[in-house]
């Protein structure tokens, strides 16, 4: 395998990709990096057939399958619930399996170009693979599990529908890192816990069954904690689960200010 060539559409033979009836040609630009060959990341372009109903993930799979097997990216469920395929698509953090081509089409007769790059703020390991370990370390640091003292009840704990509803939004998190890696504070300071960790702290702080709020709030009161948040709202926009991330962070801040959960 020759090392990947610099941006040069003509160099990539995409004719082997099956082109179903009704497909159009779009250009996919990918910020590629293979540490075994490259000194630094570079863009490569691929002209590929796409149906309007295709997900961006389908195009990446086709490029990998029929053009360049070295193209590397995470994917699993392909319908937005496993959180594997977070990436920057046209500059914003999205799951590649939740973005349809029809929503990216250029106006008029212009050729559609779709830019794909790894999520920002975590080291790029190869193509769209980033090192997820710092992200999960921040998650683990906020004690993201139920803390309850005393004897366990014999039956289930009773929780009112209203109390259950109180933290519903933050239970939806799939740990895809779209929010954390869209945060300008995280980009400039990787030791900031980041939105996802705070969302998961919120999920327990506001759970009426939990008795660990103080421990968690102490952790988040740290210099790398919630006070670094500048309410840019990038995180809320990036969340593929529609979680009101910034609001959750604000609620944690308020809990710290007023010692009230």
């Amino acid at each position: 395998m020759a090392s990947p060539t610099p941006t040069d559409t003509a160099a990539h033979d995409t004719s082997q990709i099956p082109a179903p009836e009704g497909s159009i040609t779009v250009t996919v630009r990918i910020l590629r990096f293979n540490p075994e060959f490259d000194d630094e990341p570079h863009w490569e372009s691929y002209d590929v057939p796409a149906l309007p109903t295709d997900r961006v993930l389908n195009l990446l799979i086709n490029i990998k399958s029929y053009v360049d097997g070295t193209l590397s990216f995470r994917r699993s469920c392909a319908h937005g619930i496993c959180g594997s395929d977070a990436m920057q698509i046209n500059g914003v953090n999205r799951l590649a399996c939740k973005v349809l081509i029809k929503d990216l089409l250029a106006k008029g007769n212009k050729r559609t170009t779709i830019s794909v790059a790894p999520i920002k703020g975590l080291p790029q390991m190869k193509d769209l693979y980033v090192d997820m370990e710092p992200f999960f370390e921040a998650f683990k640091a906020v004690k993201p599990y139920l803390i309850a003292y005393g004897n366990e009840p014999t039956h289930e704990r009773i929780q009112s529908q209203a109390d259950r509803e109180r933290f519903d939004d933050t239970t939806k998190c799939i740990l895809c890192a779209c929010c954390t890696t869209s945060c300008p504070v995280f980009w400039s300071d990787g030791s900031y816990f980041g939105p996802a960790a705070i969302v998961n702290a919120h999920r327990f702080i506001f759970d009426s069954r939990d008795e660990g709020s103080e421990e968690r709030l102490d952790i988040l009161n740290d210099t790398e904690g919630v006070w670094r948040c500048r309410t840019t709202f990038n995180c809320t926009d990036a969340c593929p689960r529609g979680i009101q991330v910034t609001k959750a962070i604000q609620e944690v801040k308020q809990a710290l200010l007023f010692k009230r959960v």
Partner: protein
Amino acid sequence: MQFHKYDVLIVGAGGAGMRAAIASATESGATSPRTAVLTKLYPTRSHTGAAQGGMCAALANVEEDNWEWHTFDTVKGGDYLTDQDAAEIMAKEAIDAVLDLEKMGLPFNRTEEGRIDQRRFGGHTRDHGKAAVRRSCYAADRTGHMILQTLYQTCVKHGIEFFNEFYVLDVVLTDTENGPVASGAIAYELATGEIHVFQAKSIVFATGGFGKVFKTTSNAHTLTGDGMGIYFRKGLPLEDMEFYQFHPTGLAGLGILLTEGARGEGAILRNESGERFMERYAPTIKDLAPRDIVARSMVLEVLEGRGAGPEKDYVFLDCTHLGEEVLETKLPDITEFARTYLGIDPVYEPVPVYPTAHYAMGGIPTNVDGEALRDNDTVLPGLYAAGEVACVSVHGSNRLGTNSLLDINVFGRRAGMAAARYAARSEHVELPDDAAETVEGMVQHLRTATGGERVADIRTELQQTMDSNAAVYRTEDTLKQALSDVHALKERYGRVAVQDKGKRFNTDLLEAVELGFLLDLAEALVTTALARKESRGGHAREDYPDRDDVNFMRHSMCYKLLPEQKEENAPLGLTGFTSDIRLDYKPVVFTRYEPMERKY
């Protein structure tokens, strides 16, 4: 090559794997066995997270219920191929399994009294079939997501060690005077391409299913049957591989799952003319009949010309009468899937659906403690299996909805406890010198192969033939076609080459490995399906439309003949094709239920 030593090694970090890890580390009573979990993904990426509708347990929080009714439903749902002792254990332990999850923090939906809420689900009935019962404990339509997150959170709490993005490609067996004993596993580290040898006293396989043998499937790209494939290649049996469940309501053309919980909340299946056709097939519980019956009915509607759409190739799931509030609060995710992927809003329009390949009832045979069996009843010491990779058999020929989330919790826990206790009373078994040879050879071969075949081409053709010939309805002819296609594809697979020759994150190479497992499992599925000349549960033969208890009230045991076995055992020639598969059978365990005609 790196070397690691643990007491208990768990392969797979979905619900079954993580439940086993928690049981091993905290519940077994053994003095803190060193437990590690290997996963080819990150734990929270596992496909348990895609399960939606709930987990059944006869809590009787909202109406009268008891675990005996749940046992009966599970046995009848499995078309009497279910091992009744195992089903009884599952239904009985279901109650604690749900309560354990609640205590770990799982945010179940609640009743007005603040107890765990329950809803109806297919095949779950009051008093042996009288009416649908509210048995499924749920968290909106993301119960699997909540289970996966809660189990991962609990693993974090207990500091359980994970090796993420480690692909286990082989299990190591050591021959002893008492026969083979499991002694370790060989893993490929995705980030570096390095091979790791893990020595362990006990090993739990919890690697999930193999839905990717089909084209239209609710399964993730990563569900390639690695655990079953590894076991099968050792010459060890797979049980009941012909029984593959098609979930009735996949988004048409895409296969993305729409939970049966929608019908549990009152949604209705309709054909092109708007008729509620399930009234004809299951007059008592209609749309809440078990999945095999609903899937067959849907296919019949389409085959008989009553399908909807321009190609008349799907039916509708009608949720429009449920109202926006029910959809947004109890079924929010599937509402969003329909909007995102089909551009259809279930609040106002019926959703096009068609059966989608969903769940393997078969797998590695185990007893009720998750101990893997190397024939009909001999335990393979040190090896355990739980979840979809295993066949206990609690699902018989057709799994009831919600019983998979239950299975992973009940039998994940039992396997984890048994593995830890076994480790506590055993010594490490020495690994053979050539423990990693098979994996090294496989990786080296793929890295240097120069053949002209492409992984994607073989995989696509495999999925197409399986969809066309081995899906909801099968015949001798279609299955023979599938088998001959699989054999041809296996032959081509011998010439497969990968483009990525590197070490770092080489998913090109791993996709080739995974395809090898898929081909082996497809062959096992089709071969056992050919031999089963009856219709039962998830196996519907047009040429043998009736259940045949005289000849086929028995589990299939499917063995791959190893090269050294081939000379002694001539191929069975079941189909006129040479095959390196040997079939055997195993009796079903009956306790209190006599087989009856299955009507709903």
